[in-house]
């Protein structure tokens, strides 16, 4: 019951949003919707709901991702109220799609049937498209077209991959159900060739949605042109949803004994993504595209980590947790800068700390968090990956990972430090006066979620409450159902 | 016994020699019917050939022995090919493994000498016709070869005499779609090689629009008779490929088989007449696309037959 509510409640709020007149009312409904969703998620932690037939079930990984998405959506809703000031015609649709996106994400996270997962993920893509185009204009249109075309083709390939996985079980009688548990129970009988083909196709398909290289081409354009709250949602939550699809297939492969094969490909794509990000992050003049490439990099890190055993999986989920929080912070601050300065070019946005001290401090904190400074959590997840690679004996992986991560680190910080500490640009604030803030309260509302997320990130990095540790542990163990549980060496 | 076989062989041979002109007559009368006219007499093509044979030839001073040899060699090549293709029954006069390739190249030889005779006149129109004929002939060859390949794969033999017959009717039952594709490709090749609409208009008066007609502008007398008869014979030979593909009959008694076959040929001539009357000629730039389409169709048929064999 709770599972259906998790998907239906945001959907209901979306419909209410569509029907209501009045901007203020709709925005209030938006916040209420995300708040209600967070409440339901908290309830699901307190009292875990049972599975609903073959279609819906809550496993540790989905539960973790759903909680992260819920927090991010609430923060984004609050930020949006401060950010949005231009009255655009399609604002009603925007808010409705916002909540519909939350509903589809929840459906992805609670689905246990591969078909339901696919339908929900494709619906999420479709719900996200009007959100990208919200700003209108030629560039946003171009980004929207690239997004929808690449995502549709990618997800069609993922469907083919799911079909191939199903075909690998087609010789087994009686017919197996297309769930991880169902397929896994007959793991040894699954046909090898079809399963491999299915894995590769879903890797390409879901990887396109995640933004793994070389299918990442749509990401810089989309994150650069979409409104910053939308970009935050996509970087923080949609990537998790697509990653979940990939992990489900990985679980099936683990049952069938194809772990090394799957893990190997994960490592390849992960390293490729980090390397691509490293190349394009250097000297990038546009700070939003830069953030898109850091998203590609973090997705690469998470994918790489899964291929490195149980410790790697733990680091992967830790990285995912902090990635969501960090991306929220970074994109909210990007939105704040856009409102303050009216430009997406780094050269126009310099010396933030002089003019907007709080924003400057938060930006510094977010950059440190994203680059892996201790005591923020990404330091520990990346350290975990290094240890996992050493434990598995993957020395080349370790070397390449270290080198590429260094390059990304240098690139991001050399680009963004002038933004924080540089000489304030001589341009008057904001070439486009329409974008200037109307009302000082907006500044506070935009920065409030950033402060909350920063505190959360710092807190969860410096100290891990046992509940969080247990959740991450469960997720890591659930990822390798095929093998006997190995003792996970955690960093705490 | 041997007299009976010889009599049958001679009879079949004569039938094969007469059939081309009959088919031409059928096509012309069909086209006339569509135009609302009665058309020429049934034996008109015979009258034409006989009339031309009795006339004298005029040779231009710019021509050499090639011009005189062209019609003779092309007719000889076509007649030789006619001995190796089963037309009205399932047997032919000569046959050996691989004679399908010899037949296709004899047809090409005939075309080559017609083209050479055209180039020999030194006229620009005929040169243009020769160039077009060369291009379209080159593009039609892959389609023809792949259609032959389908028949070879179906019957497992490289001899035209055995490529037809019962083996093909089994093929229609199993890979019927491949046979449909092959027949379509062969029809397009037939229309191309015998210079019919939609590839070439045999009744046009404008040299710029001609392909085959323009190559034979300067021939006269017996040479023109040879060429006219040769074109009709080529139509019959390629048509026999098509007819045998669409209607494969096992080895029935001859007095049943031969009339049936003649009727099928006449049906083919009627169909070609209808096509000529209802379609317009394609633009010259579209003809390569049409031939590429024919090649693709026959290629697809080959793939289907192969996959069915492999499965």
């Amino acid at each position, binding site marked *: 019951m709770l599972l259906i509510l998790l998907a239906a409640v945001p959907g209901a709020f979306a419909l209410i949003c569509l029907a209501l007149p009045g901007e203020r009312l709709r925005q209030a409904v938006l916040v209420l919707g995300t708040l209600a969703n967070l409440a339901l998620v908290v309830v699901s932690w307190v009292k875990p709901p049972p599975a609903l037939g073959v279609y819906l079930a809550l496993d540790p990984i989905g539960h973790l991702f759903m909680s992260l998405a819920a927090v991010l959506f609430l923060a984004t809703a609050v930020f949006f109220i401060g950010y949005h000031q231009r009255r655009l015609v399609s604002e009603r649709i925007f808010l409705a799609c916002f909540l519909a996106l939350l509903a589809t994400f929840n459906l992805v996270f609670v689905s246990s049937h591969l078909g339901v997962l696919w339908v929900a993920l494709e619906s999420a893509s479709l719900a996200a498209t009007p959100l990208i*185009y919200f700003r209108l204009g030629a560039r946003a249109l171009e980004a929207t*077209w690239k997004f929808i075309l690449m995502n549709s083709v990618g997800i069609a390939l993922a469907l083919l991959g799911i079909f191939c996985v199903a075909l690998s079980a087609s010789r087994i009688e009686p017919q197996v159900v297309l769930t991880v548990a169902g397929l896994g129970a007959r793991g040894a009988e699954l046909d090898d060739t079809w399963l491999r083909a299915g894995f590769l196709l879903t890797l390409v398909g879901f990887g396109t949605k995640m933004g793994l290289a070389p299918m990442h081409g749509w990401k*810089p354009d989309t994150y650069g042109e979409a409104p910053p709250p939308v970009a935050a949602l996509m970087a923080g939550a949609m990537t998790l949803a697509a990653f979940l699809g990939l992990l489900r297939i990985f679980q099936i492969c683990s049952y069938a004994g194809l772990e090394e094969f799957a893990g190997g490909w994960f490592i390849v794509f992960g390293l490729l993504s980090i390397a691509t990000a490293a190349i*394009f992050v250097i000297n990038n003049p546009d700070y939003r595209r830069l953030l898109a490439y850091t998203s590609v990099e973090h997705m690469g890190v998470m994918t790489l980590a899964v291929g490195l055993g149980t410790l790697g999986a733990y680091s992967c989920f830790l990285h995912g947790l902090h990635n969501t929080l960090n991306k929220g912070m970074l994109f909210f601050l990007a939105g704040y800068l856009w409102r303050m300065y009216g430009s997406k070019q780094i050269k126009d946005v310099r010396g933030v700390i002089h003019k907007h001290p709080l924003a400057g401090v938060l930006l510094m904190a977010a950059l440190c968090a994203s680059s892996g400074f201790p005591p923020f959590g990404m330091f520990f997840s990346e350290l975990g990956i290094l240890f996992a690679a050493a434990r598995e004996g993957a020395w080349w992986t370790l070397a390449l990972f270290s080198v590429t991560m260094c390059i990304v680190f240098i690139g991001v910080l050399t680009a963004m430090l002038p933004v924080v500490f540089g000489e304030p640009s001589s341009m008057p604030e904001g070439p486009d006066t329409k974008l200037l803030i109307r009302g000082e309260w907006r500044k506070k509302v935009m920065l409030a979620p950033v402060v909350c997320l920063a505190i959360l990130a710092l807190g969860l990095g410096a100290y891990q409450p046992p509940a969080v540790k247990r959740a991450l542990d469960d997720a890591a163990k659930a990822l390798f159902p095929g093998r006997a549980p190995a003792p996970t060496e955690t960093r705490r | 016994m041997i007299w009976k076989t010889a009599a049958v062989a001679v009879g079949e041979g004569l039938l094969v020699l007469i059939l081309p002109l009959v088919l031409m007559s059928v096509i012309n009368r069909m086209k006339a019917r569509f135009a609302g006219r009665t058309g020429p007499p049934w034996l008109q093509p015979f009258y034409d050939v006989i009339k031309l044979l009795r006339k004298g030839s005029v040779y231009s001073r710019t021509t050499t022995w090639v011009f005189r040899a062209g019609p003779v060699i092309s007719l000889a090549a076509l007649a030789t090919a006619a001995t190796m293709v089963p037309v009205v029954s399932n047997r032919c006069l000569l046959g050996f493994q691989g004679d399908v390739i010899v037949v296709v190249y004899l047809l090409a030889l005939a075309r080559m000498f017609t083209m050479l005779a055209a180039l020999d006149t030194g006229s620009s129109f005929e040169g243009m016709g020769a160039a077009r004929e060369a291009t379209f002939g080159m593009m039609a060859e892959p389609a023809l070869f792949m259609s032959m390949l389908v028949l070879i794969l179906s019957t497992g033999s490289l001899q035209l005499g055995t490529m037809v017959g019962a083996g093909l009717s089994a093929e229609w039952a199993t890979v019927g779609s491949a046979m*449909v594709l092959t027949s379509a490709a062969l029809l397009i090749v037939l229309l191309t090689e015998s210079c019919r609409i939609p590839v070439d208009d045999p009744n046009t008066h404008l040299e710029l629009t001609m392909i085959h007609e323009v190559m034979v502008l300067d021939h006269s007398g017996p040479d023109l008779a040879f060429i006219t008869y040769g074109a009709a014979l080529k139509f019959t030979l390629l048509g026999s490929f098509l007819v045998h593909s669409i209607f494969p009959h096992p080895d029935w008694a001859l007095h049943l088989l031969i009339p049936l076959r003649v009727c099928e040929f006449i049906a083919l001539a009627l169909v070609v007449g209808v096509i000529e009357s209802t379609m317009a000629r394609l633009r010259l730039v579209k003809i*390569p*696309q049409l031939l590429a389409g024919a090649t693709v169709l026959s290629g697809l048929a080959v793939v289907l037959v192969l996959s069915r064999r492999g499965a």
Partner: protein
Amino acid sequence: MTLQSTVDGLLVLVLLLDLAMLGASRLMTCVRLFALQSFVLALLPACAELLHGERPGTHAIFIGVAAIVLKVGVIPWLVARIIRTGEVHREVEPFIGFTTSMVLGALLIVGSFVFAGRLPETSHPFSSNLVPVALSTLFVGLLILVSRMKAVTQVIGYLVLENGIYLVGLLLVRQTPLLVELGILLDVFVGVFIMAIVVYRIREEFDHMDTHLLDELKETQG
């Protein structure tokens, strides 16, 4: 002809329609060919059940009807509407010529047959040609997507790609629940609907539909 050869014939018809779409030079022709192909595909689940000697179940009939309504009726109408209201030059403009496209398509089809021959056998295939035809349609869809300049033809390429995947899904008719199949169909429909809106806006904003001219967003080194 037997039922088996009818089903084979239908699959070959699907292949021919693929090739025809590669060679079609008018946009409306492409759309009509796609509608015809979807119609043939919608008939196949019922034929499959007939081949196994059973009456077509409600699942197969329902999917067939839904597919016909959506993919033969609504989606082609939608695409045709964009073409009619948006385009002055209603011609496909490819990067590579039509003949080259057709020959490439033929090569891809041959490649699919060869590749499918190496894949292991699946149980209950109702035709040995199904997997090769599915792969061919997929590749031809990708070829159309990649080699055409107009946004509308890219949408058609995506639809042909989905047709190919649907063909593979036919192998799993018994395993995929009705709900999921309907969900897939609906997603495709909504996807095309949104694409149609975006294409319409592109035409309004840019006065053309050539997506290869949408290149303002790219990396510029500062």
